[in-house]
């Protein structure tokens, strides 16, 4: 019954496409871009249908605007301090709130050192369409686990959400090739923000322009460009 979905994997779907099932005993998990409507599955975004074993399906689309999703890790900009919460801009339609207690080792006495304008890396504890999104910079055990306020230096750039997912994919060819250009640090937020830091500011700028340019490039073109950059850097 999920055959009709399976045979479309890798193809481009448009909003309004409908898959209907006769046999409803089998389960299908619908990811972003797919909606269940009774016995039918409705496509609501344009993009490529992807499948993950055994029965997960979603539509992979090239978007620029971020919509908060629970559990996703993002890079935010602290825009205001109000009482005991910080307001953080994550690129969504609303500012997210971040409690000052949601940092590792923070207590009522021992407040974290966060200023307006700082960058934070955190994950969504609450994110749904009806409520204000809430960020935390600790995991469920109370450990920072890589999250928190960014140190000095580095550069924040904005790329499309599709590129971010490509950067985060396991065994991403893009990251492997980028590593060979020169050593650097990179933090990738699922909201399309990427923070990079390298030895010198010049290298950071090269890195930023490389990332922005590989948005629409075939692997061959990318390969040639990265090789040129590596030669220029050494």
């Amino acid at each position, binding site marked *: 019954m999920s055959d009709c979905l399976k045979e479309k994997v890798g193809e481009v779907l*448009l*909003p*309004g496409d*409908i898959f209907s099932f006769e046999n409803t005993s089998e389960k299908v998990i619908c990811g972003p871009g797919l909606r269940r409507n009774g016995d039918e599955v409705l496509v609501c975004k*344009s993009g490529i249908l992807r499948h993950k074993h055994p029965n997960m399906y979603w539509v992979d689309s*090239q978007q620029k605007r971020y919509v908060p999703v629970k559990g996703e890790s993002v890079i935010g900009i602290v825009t205001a301090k109000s009482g005991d919460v910080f307001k953080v801009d994550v690129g969504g339609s609303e500012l997210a709130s971040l409690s000052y207690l949601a940092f590792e080792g923070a207590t009522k006495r021992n407040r974290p050192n966060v200023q307006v304008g700082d960058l934070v890396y955190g994950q969504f504890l609450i994110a749904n369409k009806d409520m204000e999104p809430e960020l935390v910079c600790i995991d469920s055990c109370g450990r920072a686990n890589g999250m928190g306020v960014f140190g000095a230096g580095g550069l924040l750039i904005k790329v499309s959400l599709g590129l971010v997912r490509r950067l985060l994919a396991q065994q991403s060819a893009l990251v492997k090739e980028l590593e060979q250009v020169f050593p650097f640090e990179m933090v990738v937020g699922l909201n399309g923000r990427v923070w990079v830091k390298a030895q010198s500011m010049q290298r950071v700028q090269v890195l930023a322009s490389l990332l922005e340019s590989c948005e629409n490039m*075939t*692997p061959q073109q990318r390969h040639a460009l990265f090789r040129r950059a590596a030669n220029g850097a050494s």
Partner: protein
Amino acid sequence: MRSRLATTMEVDGLSAFSLREFGCEQNLLSRPDGSSSFVQGDTSVLAGVYGPAEVKISKEIYDRATMEVVIQPKVGLPGVKERAREQCVRETCEAALLSTLHPRSSLSLVLQVVHDDGSLLSCCLNAACMALMDAGLPMGCLFCGVTCAIDPEGHIVTDPTAQQEKDSRAVMTFAIDSAQHRVMMSSTKGSFSVNELQQCIAVSQRASEKIFQFYRESVRRRYSKTV
């Protein structure tokens, strides 16, 4: 990303319909969340979509997104004509979008007329649909616009040029959805009989199939580069 198509087709029993060559490009502007340009013959419209974004408290709707449409004419300030078109486009977009998925947010669509050579409203609708799709906003179905003109002899001309519109007795524009090919919006000018209206709708529905095919082709081309 850029694709073009021209069609002439015989609709069974009815007069042949012909669409001028049309073309589309998505994601051509860097700042908006979604953008497209749509060309029908010499008529050309550029569209940009922002959203879901923050909304003014006064315009906030608690259970769905607030849709805003602005049409910028080629020269001068927008007038009554543009306002009427804006409303047609806005109501069509609201019907197609699943705006309940983004409550208390704003969706704004800006349409810039680059050149007007007839069938402007249908070109605006097509550009709007492509831009909404590019922005990745959740939609229940797609829509397209088809303009028909009835010339003094009673022949139906689809996708008329400005001159053909001027010479015609009546001009009608329909927005048609992709799911059931039903009429979502109609805007008419001039005098015509009920029979003629029905005929025009039938022709537009046939023409819309061509446009939806073109949509699919141009989106496929856009995603052909992503691995």
